[in-house]
């Protein structure tokens, strides 16, 4: 009887020691390589990487980041060279999990070199649709980056007379592609889509769109020739008659409501998925998701001009209030 009791105590201590050891050192010595498509100092990618680093800090994981610097260097040749450099680093570092942030890292590293291999890959910041890369591969999972257009539409709809949506943005392929995705999410409610090259066209198209829409969504101003944010804000304040909105950070000054994406959300999800893989999960077992968090921006100037009163709930969740009295 005494021997059995001692044996049970021994097993218990062994189990407890195993649990404590496992809890403390499950990730010790494991390596994660983070491939940043852009460069240090770029807000979006910095936000993504920050999110990943916060999650991984204190886990014991060996974390290393590598930058492809393809934001300013957009040539195909540079991107491919950058992809090869990353591949070499991967071979030397021998990570247990690879995190790739944004489309270029996926396009120039994963797609050519790490498609359906044993190395698990977690992506984040991939715009709208991973299937454009022939993904998902059996060794990939992650978070797709989408505009929160549906939520933005719902907010604007509270203050608009009808459901007709107008869009004005820079005339570029990626913007047209974005609008196509917008349409998918809000069931083809964008009746009038206008793409402009310069600031004057933007203003005139805005005035014209007000006549035949119940709300207007702005695309990014990047690329619009002669763009002046301050003047745009003044122009809008003078001429606005219907609610406006945007999911682009730089357009909140001209929007009644802004709903922008969280870069940190992307990095956090990727890091958590990587830890699950280190715990033994297969990438295929982890679902590919889209971002959900939005940063709400309320423009009190425009609201006052339109006679719109926000609800207390909106004020409470708003991250940015434009035009509040000090």
């Amino acid at each position, binding site marked *: 009887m005494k021997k059995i009791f001692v044996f049970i105590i021994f097993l218990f201590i062994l189990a407890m020691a195993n649990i404590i050891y496992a809890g403390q050192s499950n990730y010790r010595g494991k390596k994660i390589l983070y491939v940043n498509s852009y460069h240090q100092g770029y807000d979006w990618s910095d936000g993504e990487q920050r999110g990943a680093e916060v999650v991984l800090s204190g886990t014991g994981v060996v974390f290393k980041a590598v930058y492809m610097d393809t934001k300013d260097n957009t040539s195909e040749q540079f991107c491919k060279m950058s992809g090869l450099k990353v591949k070499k680093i991967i071979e030397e570092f021998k990570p247990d999990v690879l995190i790739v942030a944004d489309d270029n890292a996926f396009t120039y590293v994963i797609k050519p070199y790490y498609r359906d291999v044993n190395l698990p890959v977690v992506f984040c910041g991939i715009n709208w649709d991973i299937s454009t890369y022939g993904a998902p591969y059996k060794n990939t999972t992650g978070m797709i980056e989408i505009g929160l257009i549906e939520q933005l539409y719902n907010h604007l709809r509270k203050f608009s007379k009808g459901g007709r949506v107008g869009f004005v943005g820079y005339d570029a392929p990626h913007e047209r592609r974005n609008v196509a995705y917008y349409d998918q999410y809000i069931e083809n409610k964008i009746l009038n889509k206008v793409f402009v090259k310069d600031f004057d066209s933007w203003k005139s198209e805005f005035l014209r769109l007000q006549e035949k829409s119940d709300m207007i969504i702005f695309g990014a101003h990047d690329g619009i020739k002669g763009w002046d944010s301050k003047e745009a804000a003044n122009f809008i304040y003078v001429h606005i008659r219907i609610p406006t909105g945007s999911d682009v950070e730089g357009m909140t000054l001209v929007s009644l409501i802004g709903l922008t994406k969280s870069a940190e959300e992307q990095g956090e999800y990727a890091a958590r998925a990587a830890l699950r893989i280190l715990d033994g999960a297969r990438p295929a077992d982890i679902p590919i998701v889209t971002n959900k968090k939005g940063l709400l921006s309320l423009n*009190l100037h425009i*609201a*006052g001009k*339109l006679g719109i*009163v*926000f609800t*207390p709930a909106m*004020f409470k969740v708003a991250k940015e209030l434009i035009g*509040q*009295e000090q």
Partner: protein
Amino acid sequence: MMRFSISQKIFYGFSIIILLAVSILLVSYPLLTKIDALSSRVVPLEKETNVSQEGIEIVRLLESKIELYVILGSQEARDEARKALEQLDRFTSKLSIVKDLENLRMIRISAEKISSVADTLINYINKKESADRINQCLLETVKRIQYFEETQKNFQNFKLKQSLEIATEEKEIIRVLLQTFLILELFIVFFGILASFLLSKIITRNLFKLHKVTQEIASGNFQTRVSISSKDEIGQLAGSFNLMLEELRKSTVSKDYLNSIINSMADMLIVLDPQLKIIRVNKTVSELLGYSEGELIGEPINIIFSSAHSLFTGTEFEQHVKKGAFIDYEIHFVTKNKIDIPVLFSVSVISDKEENISYVVCTAQDITVLKNAEQELRALSLTDPLTGLYNRRGLLALGEQQIKIAKRNKEDVMLLFVDMDNMKWINDTFGHAEGDLALIEIAKIMRITFREPDIIARIGGDEFAVIAMQATRNEENVLIGRLKKNLDSRNNEPGKQYVLSLSMGIAVCQAPYVGSVDEFLTRADKLMYKDKRDNLKKHSD
């Protein structure tokens, strides 16, 4: 050293334990009081926490009502918002009135600010003020609500911290209390065990002494005494016990004494149980029979009875015992080496009140020497037991003496040899008993025929011899005549079944002569046989 009775010892022992228990209470009382004081601090803490929680719920209600009023703008929604506002006002009033809720001052101020701005907001909405003013006021309201929430949260955290501090303090007190309890409890347990041990030792030590003495008494030692010097109840009992022992010793024979007596007995002593099995033997039994005491104990008494010579075969002994005591039965015991020993065997029976046999006491005396002496004596006898005459040995012994005397006195000695005729015929016809009677009659005739100093002997089965002293040859015929006359007298008696007849031979030795009695007997024997042949010839003629 002080002397205590057992009851005093138990009383003082338990008193000390009770004192220790009381000391635990005394030690723990201040700590328990401190815990009570801490508990009294918890009560307002709970009350403040509950009130602040109530505040946050009222504010959230107001917030939701304003939200509805902003969205709906209806009179009804406005009334609901007003009601919520009034509820908030009552809450702030309560906070300012109740004194023991002073710690909620910041919450009260914060709530009052909400109330103020919310009132303005409701008025703005009601008066359909510009959206800009309403938004700014709404923003201010939300900010103040957020501030209230933050204040309430901080307050809750503060109270939580206080609760934790109290809990920590309580935990520390309880730890000290438990530690104290544990130490004192251990001390009590230790002391209790020690006290119990000592108490039991004190009590049982003297009891063991008594027990040991009783065992010695049981083994027959009446000289032993209890050596207890304590004055308690057991000491008194020991004193009484010793007195009893002294009296007992005077009136009781000790076992050793009894044993020494029994073992010193020359006779054998065997004690049997009611089933007649041996339960005790003395040393003499072992020495004579060759058995050890252990070999005999438990065995039936028959084991020592000789089957060849004993009177007690089968169940005869048992039947004798049932009849009661018997003495001096001449029987034979048999030794371990199968040698018979003649003994004089006596038995006495010890019975209980119901006359049931308790013990059978057997004594036996070895009579081997006696029996041997008897045999020797029988061998040395000079007389014939049947006729009372001298036997051949007697004739020879006395005859030699008489011949020596006659030789010294120069006197003649006559030896008459007589043989009874038809002895075999008488035995065969009338039996040996009759034959014996015939011999006795011959002896009688010879006694009355011869003189007192003459030596008359029966020297064989039907042969007689007489040494007649101072008899001369002249008297030879007188003696024979007298013998025949006496024989005829017998034969002539009526009723005699047969006639007695004798053949005789006489040898006369004249002085001075030489020779022994045997020579005279030989000469007389020859003459007697001549006479016998003559008689046979006469009868046959």
